[in-house]
């Protein structure tokens, strides 16, 4: 059973060397128009920065609209903290904006613990009382009841407390932070402040909390000059070292899109459990069947069995000598052209196709795990080099090379998610070429720095590292160029229905 599956998995690509392409020279990369590779600018904000940013927005709105800061806060919350939109919308339609946000006009102030001229029945405790508190809507409740209400919202409703409303039935007026702070206990006030801060980041479309468990920083995407909305994945790095996608808060997954990753993870959850063995760290040598353990991240396997010494690829089990130059096709899935076969076993074909991408995805993933170990081992290696007589600085290039290697593996992992969802077209061809190039040089780099210290050749490492970095950039450029072209095409299709040619620009 397991044997059948491994056959099915590993026999589909490495024997195909027909894809001739004169590209052995490391420097003849296919050229992409040089696109701005600069990632979208972002800033990492500490809790103090967040408070400052929030206070500045409140001040701006309160001063421009001549309103209480606590009302400005409620208004800002209903406009996702876009101060300029609050202001322009307010001048267009003041009543509508106040109504929608649940704010009372400045003529109706909140009252905290005042005495009514006549006793009235508190709608909460049902006693006849004179003391009362009320928001601008004028709905009175006795102060102890109002405090109990505010306290209940904070203690029992968590972050939702920041959107709590007047306690009266169907009244939409929002509790203000001024009223909450006047009526809550010290402990509740402190929790409420935390909720306000959390809500600020959650509501603000250009802010996101760093997902690292103990980190208190948030990332602010800088507003593009053209005011274009933020869409799609964006790699951001927190000051704490966490690197993540701003849009979906998952691991940085470029070049795959957030949606591709979402679908992929669902698919993996459904399909992959049976194939967990793919992650196992030992496999039989294809030549002599002795089991060989994978110790580093490098996929170039050499059988240690006395008489064997067979060199093979961990991923596809094909001979390693086919993994260089023109012969390298390990990254592509050979789609069958045989219509008969296609019809006969669609589901088997779909599974094979999935497993092709999945096995490579998970392999880079596991290699990455091993690479983390490499990162630590590298420190030891550098120490060893010093012992062999080189100075500390001399060893640092290995650290940088390790970081490059990790970046390449990281991207390679997600290239298989991206490729899985690509239609078979010209772009996919180009992409797979870039992927292949990157994969080859990444393996070279990995192999070189995993060697014993005395065998590592500095120039070789630097060469592979430079190649890897350049090819990584090429790959991202190809993806970005394609994305821009697609967006452009979609735009044109929307503007000129049915038109095949680009619209002529009017001079």
């Amino acid at each position, binding site marked *: 059973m397991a044997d059948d599956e491994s056959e099915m998995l590993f026999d589909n690509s490495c024997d195909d060397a027909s894809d001739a392409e004169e590209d052995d020279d490391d420097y003849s990369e296919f050229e992409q128009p040089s696109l701005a590779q600069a990632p979208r600018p972002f800033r990492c904000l500490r809790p103090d920065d967040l408070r400052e940013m929030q206070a500045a927005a409140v001040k701006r709105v309160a001063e421009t609209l001549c309103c209480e800061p606590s009302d400005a806060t409620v208004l800002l919350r209903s406009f996702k903290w876009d101060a300029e939109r609050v202001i322009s919308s307010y001048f267009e339609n003041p009543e509508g904006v106040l109504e929608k946000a649940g704010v009372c006009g400045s003529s109706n102030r909140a009252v905290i613990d005042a005495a009514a001229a006549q006793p009235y029945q508190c*709608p*909460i405790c*049902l006693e006849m009382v004179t003391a009362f508190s009320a928001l601008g809507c004028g709905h009175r409740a006795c102060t102890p*009841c109002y405090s109990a*209400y505010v306290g209940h919202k904070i203690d*029992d409703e968590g972050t939702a407390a920041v959107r709590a409303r007047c*306690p*009266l039935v169907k009244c939409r007026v929002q509790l203000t932070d001024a009223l909450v702070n006047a009526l809550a206990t010290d402990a509740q006030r402190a929790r409420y402040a935390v909720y306000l801060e959390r809500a600020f980041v959650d509501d603000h479309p250009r802010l996101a909390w760093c997902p690292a468990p103990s980190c208190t920083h948030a990332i602010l995407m800088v507003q593009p000059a053209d005011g274009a909305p933020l869409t799609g994945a964006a790699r951001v790095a927190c000051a704490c070292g966490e690197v993540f996608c701003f849009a979906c808060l998952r691991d940085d997954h470029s070049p795959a899109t957030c949606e591709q990753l979402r679908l992929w993870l669902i698919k993996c959850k459904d399909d992959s459990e049976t194939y967990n063995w793919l992650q196992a760290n030992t496999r039989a040598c294809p030549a002599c069947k002795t089991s060989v353990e994978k110790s580093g991240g490098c996929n170039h396997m050499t059988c240690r069995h006395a008489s064997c010494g067979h060199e093979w690829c961990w991923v596809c089990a094909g001979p390693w000598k086919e993994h260089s130059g023109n012969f390298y096709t390990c990254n592509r899935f050979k789609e069958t052209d045989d219509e008969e076969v296609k019809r006969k076993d669609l589901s088997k074909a779909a599974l094979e196709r999935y497993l092709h991408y999945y096995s490579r995805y998970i392999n880079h993933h596991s290699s990455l795990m091993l690479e983390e170990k490499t990162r630590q081992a590298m420190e030891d290696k550098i120490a060893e080099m010093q012992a062999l007589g080189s100075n500390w600085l001399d060893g640092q290039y290995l650290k940088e090379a390790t970081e490059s290697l990790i970046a390449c593996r990281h991207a390679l992992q997600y290239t298989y998610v991206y490729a899985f969802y690509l239609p078979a077209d010209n772009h996919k061809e180009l992409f797979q070429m870039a992927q292949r190039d990157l994969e080859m040089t990444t393996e070279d780099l990995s192999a070189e720095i995993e060697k014993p210290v005395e065998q590592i050749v500095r120039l070789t490492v630097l060469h592979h590292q430079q190649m890897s970095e350049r090819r990584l950039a090429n790959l991202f450029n190809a993806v970005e160029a394609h994305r821009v072209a697609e967006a452009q095409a979609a735009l044109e299709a929307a503007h000129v229905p049915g038109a095949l040619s680009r619209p002529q620009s009017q001079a």
Partner: protein
Amino acid sequence: MGELPRRIQKETQRLLSEPVAGISASPYQDNLRYFNVVLAGPATSPFEGGIFRLELFLPEEYPMAPPKVRFLTKIYHPNIDKLGRICLDILKDKWSPALQVRTVLLSIQALLSAPNPEDPLDAGVADHWKSNEAAAIEEAKRWTQQYATGSLP
């Protein structure tokens, strides 16, 4: 459990002295926060003529938190599930401490008059209601005759 809050005492007194038409609610002697509720199916609804039993409990946080209410009599209604749980906004996020047991029971009575299959609790019943309202109403009438057979105290 501490002393019964004055608000609950007041509400109970009024429920007993000025009952709402078609609704009876009386606390159990051993737990004054736990009410036995009997509700007459509203006229011109499929539940007309039926007598429905419910239980109502006032939690410790009441009136900051809503009462917990559940039908004990089986009922065929898109907003009430097999366990008798009721889908009604004022029993969840639209709760206000200015609402009372009396207003809650009136809202439940109104829900029997106007089922809302667009916001269903029991998807099967709601689908029936949307696809063939007449047949669903007939089914509700049958259930009323079969199960809602008590009498108002």
